[in-house]
């Protein structure tokens, strides 16, 4: 049997995803069925780890709740913050759009701990904000570090590009003529936004929401660097199970549950999208 050029070119990526993405997920699932606190993977089959998690006395559900709540709040805030900028990038900035876009891409190349630690230096007692206020006004800065609000702030900060660029791609899909036509026919600004812009940009908006939610639900650096130990998010619980607790099967079971949650959401949304149109096939 001879493969056509399309499938043939898909082979290298296919092998990578199979060995580097699918197989590790199978390994995690296998570990989640092993005897608690053991390393007998593939040799024992038990649901004990899941039973431990679902036990009402176990408070791990609180970590799940925090992660999902923080992720949802991140999505809402980022939608409001990034939409005007995406609109500017897609419509207003013209020849400056490339440069402005670059300014928003660049932070992705700086490790997130470095950027988050910069905020610690900004907000900490004796730090930039505190020192400035003390020098200028003689009052100390607010005590905001190591609170859940600060974790949310860090997540909004880190995931901004992941909302901004899909929104920009979405808004770039709206033909300008259509907006002009709607305006000529007497549509108000709000009507144009609701009836023309929003539905046509929806694929990009959906991708932005999905991406920031999923990454936010698995976020951990923000909670550890900016949040102190004020909130334990689910990925932190998973890490604890793998490191201090040395309970790989339990950590694996938590990871499987998180993956199921995220995977269902991603598949539901992604399957409806036409990527050729979003990425610009003409």
């Amino acid at each position, binding site marked *: 049997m001879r493969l*056509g050029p*399309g*499938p043939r*070119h898909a082979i290298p*990526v296919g092998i990578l*995803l199979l060995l*580097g*993405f699918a197989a*590790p*997920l199978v*390994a*995690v699932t*296998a*570990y989640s069925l092993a005897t608690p606190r053991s390393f007998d993977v593939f040799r024992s089959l038990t649901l004990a780890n899941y039973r431990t998690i679902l036990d009402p006395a176990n408070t791990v559900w609180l970590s799940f709740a925090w992660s999902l709540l923080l992720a949802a709040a991140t999505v809402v805030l980022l939608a409001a913050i990034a939409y*005007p*900028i995406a609109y*500017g990038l897609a419509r*207003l*900035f013209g020849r400056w759009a490339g440069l*402005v876009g*670059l300014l928003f891409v660049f*932070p*992705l*190349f*700086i*490790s997130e*701990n*470095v*950027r988050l*630690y*910069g*905020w*610690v*230096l900004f907000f900490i007692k*004796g*730090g*930039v904000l*505190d*020192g400035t206020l003390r*020098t200028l006004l003689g009052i100390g800065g607010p005590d905001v570090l190591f609170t859940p609000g600060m974790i949310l702030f860090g997540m909004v900060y880190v995931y*901004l590009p992941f909302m901004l660029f899909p929104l920009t791609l979405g808004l770039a899909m709206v033909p300008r003529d259509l907006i002009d036509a709607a305006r000529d026919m007497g549509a108000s600004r709000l009507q144009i936004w609701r009836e023309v812009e929003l539905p046509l940009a929806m694929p990009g908006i959906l991708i932005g929401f999905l991406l920031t939610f*999923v990454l936010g639900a*698995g*976020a951990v*650096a923000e909670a550890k*660097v900016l949040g102190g130990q004020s909130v334990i998010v689910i990925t932190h619980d998973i*890490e604890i199970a*793998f490191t201090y607790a040395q309970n*790989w099967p339990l*950590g*694996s079971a938590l*990871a499987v549950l998180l*993956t199921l949650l*995220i995977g269902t959401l*991603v598949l539901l949304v*992604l*399957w409806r999208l036409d990527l*050729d149109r979003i990425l*610009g096939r*003409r």
Partner: protein
Amino acid sequence: MRRAIGLWTGLVVVMLYLPVLCGVLASLGQSRYFRFPVQQWSTAWWERTLSSIEIGILIRTSLAIAACVTVAAVVIGFVGALAFARYDWRGRRLYQKLLLLPIFFPQPVLGLALLLWFNALGAPLSWWTAVVAHLVWIVPVVTLVIAIQVYGFDPALEEAAADMGASRLMVLREVTLPLLWPGIWSGALFAFLLSWGNFPLSLYTTGADSTVPEWLYAKMVAGYTPMVPTLGTLATLAAAGALLLGGGLLALVRRVREAG
């Protein structure tokens, strides 16, 4: 409205770079602990950081990983982008979506999953396993970056060259690569810089080796010294330098081509 959006964008950009600036300030003070306003400016921590052997090793490990990731990701991503956007085939839509899954997945969890998998395989962890881990996430990104260029590419040109008797290798060298190279170059820049700055995947997959972001994190948690903001700033400057160099080269070659 135009002005309001411009102003808002400016404000958000300032917020985006404010923590980077705080890192620069903290690296330039003399005292062991950061106090603002800085009492005594000094480059002592920079000198110490630049002359540290330990940090030299970290930088070399990070560079080695990023270099390997770039080469492998560009090759796999280039071929993958042709399957993504150039050819029409039955499984293409499914392939496009499967390719996105590693991007839509939390990296710390992916790192742990890879740790389990390497462990199950009995593969000893080192910076090599980190290369594999980075590729799982970076290849899809590079594929997308190149695919965007492929969408604007006219397949008829390849067919014309083949009709005139060019071999497959000649078509690739004389037609496909010259037309797609801006996308490939951008993909390479993305691969290098994303690998250079990556923390969550490296954390679980480098074994005894350590990268720059890993060392920074370890010191942030326990054992802060002003070398933390110094090395952080240094890594940022290196990324900016690579981006300017890569972007500048891209613009230059484009201009020369348009003129010629």
